[in-house]
């Protein structure tokens, strides 16, 4: 080993700039959320819209875990657990609705489902 193996660096020097900070995770989360919202707004396929909703949920999950890590509690990870449960329920019901809609109209384009539009 080189000479530094024994002299203990103080932790402030060791972390330096090459450790991802809370802001890095939050910015990544913001970018992913924007991508998901763009997908919801510009796509015309119901399944892709549901996938974009999943991207947004995961972006929020990432920020929850990052905040939980910064605060040093387990609450963030538990909230992520609940979010995943809700996402599973949302996917099950949403995909059942997609199947029903496709059976009626033979299309996945949301522009064809205008029966409730006036």
């Amino acid at each position, binding site marked *: 080993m080189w000479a530094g193996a024994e002299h203990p660096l103080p932790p*402030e020097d060791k*972390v*330096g700039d*090459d*450790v991802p*900070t*809370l*802001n*890095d995770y*939050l*910015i*990544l989360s*913001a*970018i992913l*959320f*924007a*991508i998901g*919202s*763009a*997908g919801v*707004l*510009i796509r*015309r*396929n119901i*399944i*892709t819209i549901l*996938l*974009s909703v999943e*991207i947004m949920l*995961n972006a929020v*999950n*990432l920020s929850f*875990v990052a905040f*939980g*890590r*910064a605060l*040093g*509690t*387990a*609450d963030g*990870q*538990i909230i992520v*657990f*609940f979010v*995943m*449960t*809700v996402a*599973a*329920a949302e*996917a*099950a*019901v949403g*995909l*059942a*609705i*997609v*199947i*029903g809609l496709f*059976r009626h109209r033979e299309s*996945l384009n949301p522009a064809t489902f205008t029966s409730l539009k006036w």
Partner: protein
Amino acid sequence: MTLFYLFAAVAVLASLLVISQRNPIYSVLLLIASFGALSGLYVLLEAPFVAVIQIIVYAGAIMVLFLFVVMLLNAPHEETEQDERLHAFRRPAPFRFGVVLAVALAIELTWALTRGGGETGAFPGAAVSSVRAIGRTLFTEYSFPFEVTSILILVAMVGAVVLAKRDVGRSGASAPPRG
């Protein structure tokens, strides 16, 4: 930091490709790749429990459900002929508006996060990464939400069965007599 940039790049690129694919099957598969990268980020955040259930529940259960529905419906590609070749900015107004809105949202969020200075350096303190601690908090402090979650799952299950069932009224015993 290298790992962070690697996982972040994979997640962002895969998510961008998810919303730019025409074929929903590719979208689902790319989203699984994005979830794998997010799972790596959770490992970097010292949350191995979340990383594992991200893979098992999200990539393993929810995405397989999506893939199953995509293949079951044998869905046609979404675009119609007239805007098949148009760039996203040259499509009709709602789509242009959506792209602009999303870019504005990204810029705004990033600006709001970077202007305040905020945290620099590593995370302070120790991480709660043991499944024992998470389970203890989940079943004591959060036991009521946990039980409510089971009711939510039950309702979603019944709802999915009822919604996806073909002709509920005709085959059931409670259907009104016809003719």
